[in-house]
């Protein structure tokens, strides 16, 4: 008998404490659904996330990593997310340069009032990861060519 293995993506969402995490909360209390594949990690500010966090999430088996923060201009620490924006632009461009699928990483700005946006963003992102399938390129391959 053949057991069909269904692909269940593992998705890590880094959410800043002040906006996006609250947005996720709102989504929850408004009974808006988003896939259970998304594991939220709360960070004090989107700029707390250094590239190593994202890479390590992939190394440990994530199929997609999304980073959510306050809208530019609204960061609790005034300017944190402006730095995030530059850093992530650079990191994503490097991943693309190395041949990794572009869709596996994403940055979204979600405010504390945007429960609906939070749920839409997560639904879209998860759908994209389903489309891309398992992360093999950035995963722990454990063997060379």
């Amino acid at each position, binding site marked *: 008998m053949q057991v069909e293995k269904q692909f269940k993506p593992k998705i890590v969402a880094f959410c800043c404490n002040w906006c996006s995490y609250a947005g996720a909360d709102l989504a929850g209390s408004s009974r808006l659904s988003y896939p259970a594949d998304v594991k939220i990690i709360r960070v004090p500010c989107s700029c707390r996330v250094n590239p190593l966090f994202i890479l390590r999430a992939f*190394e440990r088996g994530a199929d997609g990593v999304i980073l959510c923060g306050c809208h530019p201009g609204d960061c609790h620490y005034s300017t944190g997310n*402006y*730095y995030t*924006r*530059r850093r992530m632009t*650079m990191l994503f461009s*490097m991943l693309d340069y*190395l041949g990794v699928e572009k869709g596996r990483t994403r940055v979204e700005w979600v405010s504390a009032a945007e429960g609906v946006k939070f749920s839409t963003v997560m639904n879209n992102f998860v759908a994209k990861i389903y489309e891309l399938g398992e992360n093999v390129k950035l995963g722990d*391959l454990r063997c060379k*060519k």
Partner: protein
Amino acid sequence: MQEIEKTLRSRCAELINNGTCDKVIAWDRGEFFYDNSPATFACADCAQKLVYDCFCGANLSKYLIQYAKEGKTAVLLKPCDTYSFNQLLTEHRISRENIYVIGVGCDGMVDIDKIRAMGIKGITAVKEDGEDLVVSTLYGEKTVKKADCLLEKCVSCKSKKHYVFDELIPEADGEDVKENGRFDMVEKLEAMTAEERFEFWQEQLSKCIRCNACRNACPACTCRKCVFDNPHSGVASKANADSFEEKMFHIVRAFHVAGRCTDCGECSRVCPQNIPLHLLNRKFIKEINEFYGEYQAGETADQRGPLVNYTTEDAEPTAVSDRGDN
């Protein structure tokens, strides 16, 4: 260069004798004629032993962090090395008052491997002769074009002009090199499909033996404690069969120096596996230029780096994914 070497020796001896400095950081003969290595010379007589020829590719600026803490130190810097010096000043890793910079003229450094790759065996010496190199071997002499044997970093030299110095030897300084084609290979890679790029990098990065030479030689890698030396970092810090870890190391190494890398080419020069690490750094340099405006790290000592800066109008990270699929 023979002439310059002579002048350098006597000038350095003079600087030690007249008390301008108490030691000089320069190049010394290595084990082989082609591996001149960084060294300190602390007396006028020793300074007679310093070497300056076409195998002085090593960038001496990083050594100042450790050796120019006390007293006054003189250092020999080629044009490309002066960018690193400025960058170290910017980051407060060295202090200008302690250092006397002698800018040395440079017309390109030679890569012994390129000579060997021409099929020349049993090389015992290489002498410069104008545009040519006279290669002595066990089987006689051969002449090759110097331009064909340059280090990768010299092929795309960005400047023959010193960006910081106290004196120059020879006195006349060079100019910026406008057309150096340093992004040619990056563009070539960008034009490939994602699959091809992945293949390319997997092949390259799989060669890495994690000797850390690239990190140790880099004048921008100056953290007291590197994240890769932290046993809790989750990175094994050795060459293992996990092909992702190699990438993680390389992405983070390159990312960490993004906006600070002066493109001095040391990482690729020292890599024993000949991994083209400069292609990672140059990708960041190119992207920074395109997204945030032309920027050359180390041009002056008071710039604010692009990744510790922002404007409210910066592009969103989606700009990368919107660039079309290839």
